[in-house]
């Protein structure tokens, strides 16, 4: 379209020599006209918060469908026949503890303290994987007992709601490994620390959602 733009996209001297620190010194004082000195860190975290809000709305839709369908057992088993609160409590403990370690990993990353970061991330991963493992085991047991998602609308909504959270945790585990690999390969760069901040926010949000799931699905389900 314009020759000026065409040349601008390919400046003769691309800052290829730009080392990590150099580029990110630029990145933080980005010239995009951020008002009132909002740094890239704030913009990124803010955007990620907006994403998390949308994610919570996604869960809200699944919660609503569960609320509508939770009594539609179609003659099949109800929550009180199926839920084993002790197992779920163990699951909950895994996830909540993993968040503690996720927070420690964030501190480790900010302090550029390798042992704390890698150690805490590894524990977070193990606890998160244990959470997913227990959940998969619960799903397998239910399906074995003939209480799979095809059995009734209640079980459909249950599997979808819990499964949606489980998928989020699984995606989080994949992200966690990627973050560890990134820090290992690239060091504690500003942009990677920002991603670490987002990951931490994500992991905490999954905790909050799980607390709601544990209370509204399992505890209420057993009591009903």
């Amino acid at each position, binding site marked *: *379209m*314009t020759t*000026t*733009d*065409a040349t*601008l*996209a*390919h*400046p003769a*001297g*691309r*800052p*290829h020599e*730009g*080392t*990590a620190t150099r*580029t990110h010194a*630029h*990145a933080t004082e980005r*010239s*995009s*006209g*951020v*008002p009132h000195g*909002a740094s890239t860190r704030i*913009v*990124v975290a*803010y*955007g990620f918060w*907006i*994403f998390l*809000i*949308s*994610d919570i*709305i*996604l869960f809200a*839709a*699944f919660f*609503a*469908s569960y609320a*509508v*369908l939770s009594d*539609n*057992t*179609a003659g099949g088993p109800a929550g009180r026949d199926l839920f084993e609160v002790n197992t779920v409590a163990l699951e909950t403990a895994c996830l909540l503890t993993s968040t503690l370690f996720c927070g420690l990993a964030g501190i480790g990353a900010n302090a550029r303290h390798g042992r704390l970061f890698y150690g805490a991330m590894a524990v977070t991963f193990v606890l998160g994987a244990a959470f997913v493992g227990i959940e998969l085991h619960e799903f397998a047991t239910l399906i074995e007992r003939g209480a799979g*998602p*095809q059995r*009734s*609308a*209640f079980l*459909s*909504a249950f*599997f*979808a709601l819990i499964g*949606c959270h489980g998928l989020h945790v699984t995606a989080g585990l*994949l992200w966690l490994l990627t973050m560890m690999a*990134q820090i290992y390969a*690239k060091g504690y760069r500003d*942009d990677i620390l920002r*991603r670490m901040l987002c990951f931490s926010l994500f992991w905490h949000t999954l905790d909050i959602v799980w607390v709601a799931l544990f209370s509204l699905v399992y505890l209420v389900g057993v009591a009903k």
Partner: protein
Amino acid sequence: MWGRLSWQAIPWEQPLPLAASAVVALALGAVLVWVVVKGHLPYVWHEWLSSVDHKRIGVMYIVLALLMLLRGFSDAVLMRAQQAVALNAPGFLPPEHFNQVFSAHGTMMIFFVAMPFMIGLMNYVVPLQLGVRDVAFPTLNSVGFWLTATGALLVNISLVVGEFARTGWLPYPPLSELTYSPGVGVDYYLWALQISGVGTLLSGINLVTTVLKVRAPGMQYLRMPMFCWTTLASNLLIVAAFPILTATLAMLLLDRYLGFHFFTNEAGGNMMMFMNLIWAWGHPEVYILILPAFGVFSEVISTFSHKPLFGYRSMVLATMAICILSFMVWLHHFFTMGAGADVNAIFGIATMVIAVPTGVKIFNWLFTMYGGRIVFATPILWSLAFMTTFVVGGMTGVLLAVPPADFVLHNSLFLVAHFHNMVIPGVLFGAFAGYTYWFPKAFGFRLHEGLGKAAFWCWVIGFYLAFMPLYGLGLMGMTRRMQHYDDPTWRPWLLVAAGGVALIAVGIALQVAQLVVSIRHRQALHDETGDPWNGRSLEWSTPSPPPLFNFAVLPDVEGEDAYWHIKQRAREQNQPRKEVDYRDIHMPRNSATGFICAFFATVMGFALIWHIWWLVAAAFVGAFATFVVFAWRDVHEHLIPAARVADIDREHRDRVASGGNPRSVALRPSA
């Protein structure tokens, strides 16, 4: 190996879609060959496909919307032609094909015409109006666009491979369940919308963050142009509503793929939950589309009346009120569900209440024009047609909001007339106004006025001819989506409607001609100064087209109508040009992430539709790898040296200074 896919998937016995797709494929192939042979491929790749510049992405969104408008409109022509001939006759479209046509028409027009058009305008204009150099997340922006394009591509692939949904533009269960729609049509619909929905959500997050966190110094909330406010409201609605769509469609997918019972007839499923969920997204969706158009009208009316927008603050309030109220009216789409008189009354009243802020806006626009020196250029003609026509549609809407009346009119052509009467003037005319208004900014030359006005009159008269008869037909008892009928009294009105569509077709042809003629006469239509309309907001302070970095020096905003005041002051003080302190500018580097990611998304969507599970896994790994490669890159930005910035900016200032435009002469710096 290939799941459900086989050679039978290609509808050999239906010549119409095959021929149409062959023409499209030939045209696309010809363009591709031309690009490659002429050696334009590097330009297309570096400047467009892998660009993360919000201006380029905005233009690509609008190109996508215009192309899909042709597709969606050809569906409309088919429907009107079918109903014109199908009195006691089968017509030329068999029922299963007719059903696909109306489903594709609605899906195309809402998701791949109206949405990309509006998101394209917002992408292009908002950073310029806010006085900044890009959106908050440029690469994410590119990913969002390409995922939207993926969705459009999948819907179009369904023409040739398999079939499209026969369920209407919203796949109501139980018809959309596996029992009644065993084919791949609904799956095409669902995966296309899931993928493009992710793109829309990313774009929404991006624009919300941009408006709230990335603004020029001094650009306080109540100094933002109206279009930025409506963009904010619209994108807040995207963030709040699109996850509901994703969740709802995911539930339907679980029903169809894994035998869940969310919306089925049996095992306790609740199909009315689908209506509630889909309209909890669907009603905000119409405001997602129309709020940016309200912003366009505000800009256009104020600019061409040469007056500040009347009641700016009440306009902001009305916008945000609509933003909230839009979530409180969803049930009026199915009063006939039988929720009871109390529930229906509450939603009926809420629906009427939402007409109040809309009325505030109409009066504000009228008072903006009152006493102004109005220039009747094409953009304001679209705005005037919008106001008059939209009020008619609004009133039939208030009529439909009365539950007893709705019971009679539900699913009749009256309803079809009503929502076309809202969306065409509200969204499409707004899109056309914005397209004509900002075209010179994007390309450096204006669109041909005469052809634009001719297209305008064809569209407006064609609209009335095509849709006013449908109100009458609805009152006469004709329901929507009829492949044939046996009431001869309906025939004359359907013929008038078909005539209206023919006139709209002339309007579209004139728009194509306008584009071609304008490109050929671009020297004569050239926009020297970057401010062809004597504009009021900051985008008009940049050259047309703006340089990659938009602003050589970020503007310092001191009030509403920022550029208008800069011009006023320059005129009053006639001050010598201030020496500008140019600095190096860092802009985000191009990234192929969006394009490659969309490639894998297309493959994954296609594989999911046809149950080719190994390909799903492979495409997922590909998409994930693309993101990891992106995350691994070391250099995010490239530098434009201060000297280069200074050259470009001085060249623009000189051009403005020597421009033949008398308005610019008044601005001529005496230095």
